[in-house]
């Protein structure tokens, strides 16, 4: 391998992050709004009240705008795999093939077919057939998400595969292990329910705008009731699945967990930092973050991670330097084992070419014994601290997500309570908060993915492949050019989305209904 070009790695990462973050602006609204539509249309079919049809059609138009602008933005990520991350793409082998193929088929047949019926089928198919199409659109788009998240979860916790040293590819040995990977199941549920929460706040926020403008008040109140109940349920489950997620991370990605809490020294009865701000690092430890202020909840981190207030939570120093008493091996040892695996793979390849079966067999044995630390080998003769994620970003992103998640639940509960008692219209300050919570829920979504992806650095595939080994040996400037091209294209798409949405919202449901009828 040529000299590691960190600027190439960094630009490739930046480009992937940019694309993924823009993609994730569009996706969660599709996931959640599709179900809100289905619920609203179900009420219409059950009651026969045309007001609910009007409500459904208005939100369906906003769903359509978001879907149209966001569709296929994720394909760019696949382009990047093949061009910028070719070693990784090859190494992943057929693991991604099955989930992504299923996702493609699902997306095409379920979403495309049923979305067409959903938009074009009013008055052309029966009410029940139309409603079925709306529900299937919602289920289809959510199932598409499942396969993408299964692929992502495999990177966080690679299971169900065996590495083939002849081809340098991982081969899937157990599809069910990949599908029911504990990280995958939890990630899927946490991600989709957070999408439901986003959509609920989107509907509540826009409806609040109508109330502020004293327009379409009946429409707005009905929308708020449906969205706030949906949002409260989604928020509760998002918090519940987030709690479960913390345990999964603590088990499978302890460094990410320690970074999320900036926990340097492992401890029993570890407290949870509820709120904290970093100051300047000390002179003795310039690479470590130090709190200038923090508010802690005693024992809570131990309980959160292991459901036991007395449990030991390993800190960053325990993980880097090892902790014999707790059975944690140091990064130095892991690096040595990883280097053995890399050297054994090279020896195996040479022996195979020389047709020396015994040497190949011996090398393969060493390789298999050390494969679980394969990725650490790339840090041989390097500072083990290079294996740490950015603690500051992980901590702030995690706490932003959690604090906002709690705020959303309280806000939706209060809004629902007032709406049920017909007092919401009088609370203009609350309506303004509801409206301005829309950007906050997008911020929380992005923060969640920052925790998941920054927190696992430098791993592209946990413990097996770091980003420095995954990247293609291409010119940095070509990645820089495409980074700015994407920035341009995605920003244009986002501006188009916001502009078209605002125009549609300003027109309101009456106009939308009439224009659909034309």
């Amino acid at each position, binding site marked *: *391998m*040529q*000299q*590691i070009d960190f600027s190439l790695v960094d630009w490739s990462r930046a480009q992937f992050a940019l694309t993924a973050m823009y993609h994730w602006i569009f996706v969660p609204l599709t996931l959640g709004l599709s179900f809100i539509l289905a619920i609203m249309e179900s009420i219409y079919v059950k009651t026969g009240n045309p007001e609910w049809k009007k409500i459904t059609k208005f939100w369906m*138009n906003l769903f*359509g*705008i978001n879907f*149209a*602008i966001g*569709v*296929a933005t994720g*394909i*760019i990520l696949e*382009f*990047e795999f*093949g*061009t*910028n991350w*070719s*070693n990784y*793409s*090859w*190494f992943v082998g057929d693991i991604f093939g099955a989930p992504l193929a299923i996702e493609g088929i699902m997306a095409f047949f379920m979403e495309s077919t049923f979305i*067409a019926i959903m*938009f*074009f*089928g009013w008055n*052309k198919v029966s009410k029940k057939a139309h409603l079925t199409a709306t529900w299937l659109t919602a289920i289809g788009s959510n199932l598409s998400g499942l396969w993408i998240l299964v692929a992502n979860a495999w990177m966080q916790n690679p299971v169900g595969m065996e590495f083939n040293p*002849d*081809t*340098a*590819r991982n081969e899937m040995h157990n599809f069910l292990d990949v599908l029911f990977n504990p990280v995958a199941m939890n990630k899927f549920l946490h991600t989709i329910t957070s999408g439901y929460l986003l959509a609920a706040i989107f509907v509540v926020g826009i409806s609040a705008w109508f109330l502020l403008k004293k327009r379409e008040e009946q429409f707005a109140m009905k929308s708020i009731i449906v969205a706030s109940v949906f949002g409260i349920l989604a928020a509760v489950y998002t918090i519940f699945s987030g709690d479960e997620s913390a345990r999964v991370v603590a088990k499978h990605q302890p460094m990410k967990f320690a970074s999320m809490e900036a926990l340097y020294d492992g401890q029993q009865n570890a407290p949870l930092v509820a709120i904290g701000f970093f100051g300047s690092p000390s002179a003795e430890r310039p690479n470590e973050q130090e709190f200038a202020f923090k508010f802690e909840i005693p024992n809570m981190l131990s309980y959160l991670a292991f459901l036991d207030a007395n449990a030991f939570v390993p800190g960053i120093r325990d993980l880097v330097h090892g902790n014999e008493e707790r059975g944690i091996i140091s990064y130095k040892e892991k690096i040595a084992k990883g280097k053995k695996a*890399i*050297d054994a*793979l*090279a020896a195996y*390849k040479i022996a195979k070419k020389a047709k020396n079966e015994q040497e190949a067999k011996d090398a393969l044995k060493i390789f298999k014994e050390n494969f679980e630390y394969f990725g650490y*080998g*790339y840090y*041989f003769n390097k500072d083990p601290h290079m294996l740490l994620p950015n603690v500051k970003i992980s901590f702030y992103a995690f706490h932003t997500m959690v604090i906002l998640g709690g705020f959303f639940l309280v806000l939706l509960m209060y809004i629902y309570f007032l709406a049920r008692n017909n007092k919401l219209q009088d609370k203009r300050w609350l309506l303004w908060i509801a409206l301005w919570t829309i950007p906050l829920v997008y911020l929380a979504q992005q923060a969640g993915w920052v925790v998941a992806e920054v927190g696992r650095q430098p791993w592209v595939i946990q413990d097996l492949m770091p980003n*420095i*080994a995954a990247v*293609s*040996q*291409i010119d940095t400037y*070509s990645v820089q*050019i*495409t980074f700015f*091209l994407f920035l341009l*294209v995605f920003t244009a*798409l986002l501006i*188009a989305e916001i502009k*078209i949405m605002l125009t*549609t919202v300003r027109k309101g449901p009456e106009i939308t209904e009439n*224009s*659909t009828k*034309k």
Partner: protein
Amino acid sequence: MIKILKDIFRFYYEGFKSMTLGKNLWLIIIIKLFIMFAILKLFFFPDFLKTKFKTDEERSDYVIEQLTNPK
């Protein structure tokens, strides 16, 4: 069978024809897909291993070479 296909065609045809907002959205989708597939994919995102090597064997040899010679 032909009747079913005709009905499906008419369903989509009339659906697209009656669109108001949707026409602008389709324009955006078409422009976006053109930029993505006809410009970005074609000129900026060739598959690194597919363009550099002809066979899977060559590709795996190259990746193993890359993976086993870290600097």
